[in-house]
């Protein structure tokens, strides 16, 4: 419906200017033209004044673009149209501002990380590698991440799915309201607080030592609310007729849920779970507190310290040498690739399962 406005611009009251129904309009290419001019002037100013940072060039161009749009439109059209165009250009600017950091981040990570990725980097640990040695790798960190995330998923997925089943299929009254509210609140728990809780409970009170499993427990707390929320959304989408048909045939309720409701929603639930896995795979803070890091390969998540990919990035960043920065970028690339692949597969499943044509 917003198209109506661009096709039929009656900015001013026609009665105020008798005989003028449609007044002067800017050509269609005007916004693009102003944008190009603004970028050109921004770059020229940046070069002329010797501003070192490209961020400043961009900001100058942005301000010129918005101001220029207002002044030119106000001159050619009228103030109301000018305001409208300024907002349009500001909204476009917001879009650009959102894309730029993501582009820069991905570009930097690939540019600096790609040269590190090779068989040696992926198959070696950091055992005996000094901070300013080249070489070393992420094998132990990948093992750690996979084991910690796997264990966390094993615990969090059943609890999360059952809670969602409770909320959708059974939940009535105060308990359900309380669970819904606290699931929402749990999504907001900072990961470092989850880590501190497991530290207080598992390590300080129960007396266990640092291990991959302790890290998994903190990841469970972060994962459960995401699984509950996405599963709940999916279960709500299952048509009621399916449940009624099954119950009418005399199938017990639990078998109805297990054999009719869950299979129908399986695609969506899988998507939600994979997104949750992708999210906890990148958590650093709880690992920092509970797994403690280990330069060597430790395949046993229940005994002894481990490493993990996000922790490894932090560890190498803190070392602060050229070689360790390179390793950090390499590991960042591996981690981003892992998370993005999970995301893409999850979205693929979502799209594939999207049309609910029964099963």
């Amino acid at each position, binding site marked *: 419906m917003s198209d*109506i*406005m*661009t096709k039929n611009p*009656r900015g001013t009251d026609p009665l105020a200017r008798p005989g003028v129904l449609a007044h002067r309009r800017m050509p269609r290419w005007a916004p693009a033209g102003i944008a190009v001019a603004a970028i050109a002037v921004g770059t020229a100013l940046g070069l002329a004044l010797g501003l*070192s*940072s490209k961020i400043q060039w961009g900001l100058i161009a942005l301000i010129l673009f918005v101001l220029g749009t207002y002044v030119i439109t106000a001159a050619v059209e009228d103030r109301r149209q000018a*305001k409208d165009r300024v*907002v349009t250009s500001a*909204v476009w*600017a*917001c*879009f650009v501002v*959102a894309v730029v950091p*993501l582009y820069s*981040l991905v570009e*930097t990570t690939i540019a600096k990380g790609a040269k590190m990725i090779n068989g040696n980097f992926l198959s070696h640990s950091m055992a005996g590698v000094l901070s300013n040695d080249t070489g070393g790798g992420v094998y132990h960190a990948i093992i750690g991440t996979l084991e910690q995330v796997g264990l966390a998923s094993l615990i969090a997925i059943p609890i*999360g799915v*059952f809670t969602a*089943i*409770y*909320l*959708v*299929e*059974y939940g009535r009254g105060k308990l359900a309201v309380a669970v819904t*509210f*606290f*699931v*929402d*609140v749990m999504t*907001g728990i*900072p990961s470092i*607080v989850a880590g501190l*809780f497991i*530290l*207080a409970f598992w390590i300080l009170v129960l007396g266990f030592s640092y291990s991959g499993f302790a890290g998994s427990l903190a990841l469970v707390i972060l994962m*459960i*609310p*995401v699984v*509950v929320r996405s599963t709940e959304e999916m279960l*709500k989408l299952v048509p*009621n007729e399916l*449940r009624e048909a099954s*119950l009418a045939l005399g199938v*017990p*309720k*639990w078998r109805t849920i297990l054999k009719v409701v869950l299979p129908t929603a399986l695609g969506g639930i899988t998507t939600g779970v994979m*997104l949750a896995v*992708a999210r906890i795979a*990148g958590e*650093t*803070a709880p690992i920092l*507190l509970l797994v403690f890091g280990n330069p060597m390969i430790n395949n046993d998540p229940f005994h002894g310290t481990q490493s993990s990919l*996000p922790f490894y*990035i932090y560890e190498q*960043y803190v070392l602060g040498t050229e070689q360790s920065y390179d390793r950090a970028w390499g590991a*960042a690339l591996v*981690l*981003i690739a892992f998370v*993005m692949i999970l995301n893409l597969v999850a979205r693929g499943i979502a799209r594939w399962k*999207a049309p609910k044509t029964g099963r």
Partner: protein
Amino acid sequence: MEITKETAPPPPAVPAAAAHGRRGVTRPGDRIFSGLSRGSGILLLVLMAAIAVFLTVRAANAISQDHGNFLTTFEWDANTTPPVFGIAVLLYGTLVSSVIAMAIAVPIAVGIALFMTHYAPRRLGGPLAYVIDLLAAVPSIVYGLWGALFLVPHLQGLTSWLDQYLGWTVIFDQSNPGTAPRNLFTAGILLAIMILPIITNVSREVIRQVPAAHEEAALALGATRWETIRMSVLPFARSGIISASMLGLGRALGETMAVVTVLSSSDKLTAHILDPGGGTFAANIASHFGEATSLGRDALIASGLVLFVITLLVNGAARVIIARRKEYSGANA
């Protein structure tokens, strides 16, 4: 989650009919299954209670041995004898960096939400939603690495410029011009990028729900697109946008790794946000944990408890506002 939400039919009312079938014969299988699912729900509540209890117990232990005032002391020397530590700097740093993040992220996020709903060509809308989701999926440590090794050097020019021309505002004054911008301002910018997706996604869901009749009425009166948005879209979506911002604030308050890597922390409390120094709760925990003694750990847990309570209040308030319209919870954002 967004894709399925868009393509799937509107959620039916909660299956009320299914509930009535419960009265009648109760089979053991039913009892076990409903017990399991109810038990999971209760387990969540127990977990939340346990978090509060365990953190409080350890925190009480630490605060009782604190030789400074826990609320007003600037230093964080929990490992020394006598231990002196306080959260004044951390509270200040957490609030300032989050406020900077909000001031940058909220207008841009609302702008992007409007872009996706009202301005973008249809072909651009879908990919853009995907880009925003990718922004949300990038792990915080990668943001931290990028922030420290890319953003900090690139912000040097901007901070000097701000210092030079806006230094008279005190806020933008740098005590030692030319120092690397490892300050609360840079941390705030990085946090803004990180909380952009959640604010955008929740705002977009709210804006989508503005009744078409409201907008059509405004358009029929001859309003421009901006006037339509200002008169019919924003008033309707205001409460949703506020709670979206508070969800973002909750994220910003508790973010750890991005602040640890970017900020050069110190126990200095200053109004000059371009000066390096300061700290946040989460960053302080992460950076002091390695060398902490047993009391030091309890002290860090005490600061974590304060962070927990603050985020709980912010998130709880956001949820109460948002609960009026249940369809968009933002939990998947």
